[in-house]
């Protein structure tokens, strides 16, 4: 059997990111190719197979994701290809179920799929299971030590293939093949951008409330591949990814000097960003990765500054006598949303990237804090303080405010790469223990993100290349 791959990805040895195979299409044209293929195969019924994501999720789509067969069981450093086929199907299942938009059939209702059936599904069987969509695929070991994960999406009712993708990965990155497959299914059926193949950096917490030990940690969006980046000797706070995903800006109390640092994931080194006698905090990268916007407290007055990510002279962007902090760029880099208590309490403001044109956008009751701009540009998420602490969203001009969560203390939202899901942290009353949660933009599908210890200050990275 020959797999037609609209585009293939391969992982270069010793690197933790995927590299496109030489001479293959870019992501943009790959998507075009995918859509073209879908259009070619789509029947009218298939064109209607779509998850409605506009409102709340009325009814998740029933979908079947059977174990993926292998053409030949082959041992690899990640396990043999037969067991990988089972684990890939599990990851695709968890991803799609976790989105809240799909209802994967339980294992007991699935039938084994022979390798020859991957491109010729038993539609009568799948129809009687009630599944509307079917994901089949395979895991194959290649001669060069890499793996191919084949991924096919079918409309069960019309019996049509509506998407197919092949992913070539190194065994160590086999999970990414599964996430890419889930992203293929998700984007084809929802019309939303992909987000499963992404990572989260956050602060892992443990220890007594008076003396929490805080460490930077990084993990896949589903909690897998968890890794600590710092040893907990110094308090670390508010990590944020650079667009290139190899650099993280954060705040550390190293040597009792609370300052903004950048951490290089590859080398594990950290570097002070601005050498000033004052506290610097609340860093975020510009969308082009060239600048870091941050806050600096000078004699009790906190303003927002910008500095080249490589270091240099900070440029002051705000001058109000209040606390101006929590700056976040719009995805096009032209504007910055931030919070300020210049009017009395914390409220949200938007300014041009050079600091001009500062305008308040939040006017509801209570206080508004920690704004973050959606990567899609259409929304700003924030912490609302009024009675409790909740996470909410509003438009960049301040309209359409919606409160999404209601914990004792929900705080610090961050958007998924497609702007569809918001992760935040929830602190318990009394215990002070925090953990990570996510919620759909519509306010449904609230779920806890598994972490080995407690967790706070999540930052969702961009989609992996």
């Amino acid at each position, binding site marked *: 059997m020959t797999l037609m791959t609209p585009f293939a990805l391969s992982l270069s040895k010793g690197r933790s990111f995927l590299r496109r195979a030489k001479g293959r299409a870019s992501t943009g044209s790959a998507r075009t190719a995918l859509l073209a293929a879908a259009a070619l195969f789509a029947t009218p019924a298939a064109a209607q197979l779509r998850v409605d994501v506009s409102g709340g999720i009325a009814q998740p789509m029933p979908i079947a994701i059977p174990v993926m067969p292998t053409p030949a069981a082959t041992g690899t450093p990640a396990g043999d290809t037969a067991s990988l086929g089972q684990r890939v199907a599990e990851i695709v299942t968890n991803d799609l179920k976790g989105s809240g938009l799909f209802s994967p059939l339980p294992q007991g209702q699935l039938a084994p799929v022979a390798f020859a059936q991957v491109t010729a599904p038993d539609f009568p069987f799948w129809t009687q299971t009630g599944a509307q969509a079917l994901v089949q695929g395979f895991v194959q070991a290649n001669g060069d030590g890499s793996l191919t994960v084949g991924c096919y999406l079918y409309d069960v009712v019309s019996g049509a293939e509506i998407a197919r993708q092949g992913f070539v990965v190194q065994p160590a990155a086999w999970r990414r093949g599964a996430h890419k497959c889930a992203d293929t299914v998700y984007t084809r059926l929802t019309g939303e951008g992909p987000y499963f193949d992404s990572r989260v950096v956050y602060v892992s917490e443990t220890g007594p409330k008076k*003396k929490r030990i805080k460490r930077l940690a990084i993990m896949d969006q589903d909690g897998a591949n968890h890794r600590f980046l710092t040893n907990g000797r110094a308090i670390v706070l508010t990590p944020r990814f650079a667009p290139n995903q190899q650099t993280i800006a954060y705040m550390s109390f190293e040597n009792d000097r609370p300052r903004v640092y950048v951490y290089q994931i590859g080398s594990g080194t950290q570097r002070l960003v601005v050498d000033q006698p004052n*506290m610097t*905090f609340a860093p975020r990268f510009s969308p082009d990765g060239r600048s870091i916007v941050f806050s600096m407290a000078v004699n009790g007055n*906190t303003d927002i500054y910008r500095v080249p990510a490589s270091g240099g002279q900070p440029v002051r962007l705000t001058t109000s006598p209040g606390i101006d902090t929590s700056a976040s760029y719009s995805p096009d880099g032209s504007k910055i949303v931030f919070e300020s208590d210049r009017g009395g309490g914390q409220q949200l403001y938007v300014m041009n990237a050079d600091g001009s044109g500062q305008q308040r956008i939040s006017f509801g009751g209570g206080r508004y*804090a*920690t704004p973050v701009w959606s990567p899609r540009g259409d929304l700003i998420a924030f912490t609302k*303080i009024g009675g409790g*602490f909740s996470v909410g969203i509003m438009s960049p001009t301040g309209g359409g405010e919606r409160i999404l969560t209601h914990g004792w203390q929900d705080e610090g939202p961050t958007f998924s790469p497609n702007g569809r899901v918001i992760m935040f942290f929830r602190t318990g009353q*009394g215990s002070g223990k925090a953990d990570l949660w996510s919620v759909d933009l519509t306010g449904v599908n609230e779920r806890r993100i598994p972490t080995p210890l407690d967790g706070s200050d999540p930052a969702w990275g961009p989609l992996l290349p």
Partner: protein
Amino acid sequence: MANLPFRIVMASALALAVAGCAKKKPAELPPPPASGPADTGADTSGTSTQTGDVPGSRADFLRQAGTDTVYFVTDSHDIDSEAQAILLRQAQWLARNPRVRVTVEGHADERGTREYNLALGDRRANSAKNFLAANGVDAGRISVISYGKERPAATGSDESAWAQNRRAVTVVPVGGTGF
């Protein structure tokens, strides 16, 4: 008024601490009296040698200034009259011990967002620093650090715990000048 029960707790804690000091016999010979112009001799009612506190040490500071901590109301960095009285005693002690450098730590309660609370803690630390400086302490002797909500003194999630956590702490090195 909400602070009242806590004040009582503080007062008894202080009394215990003082009692503990008083009972403890000096492990070694009392140090020689502090020399220099700082020792005005005006405050002889509780000389350090009586309790074994090394002049200029943290223990000496805590005993003579009464406390190292002042408190703030929610979301405020104003130094109220109670805090003024405490900081005045701290300033007087610092005037008598001119070689001691201090760090003022600013803290916030947990009911604020992380980044805002770092800024608020910095405001509080600077309020206390500015008050000390206005009362004769060289500002160059005072550094500030904000811990935001990262290092609470009380662990509850209620008004009395939050009141104890909205604070600025004047930290004298344990041994005094060894800063």
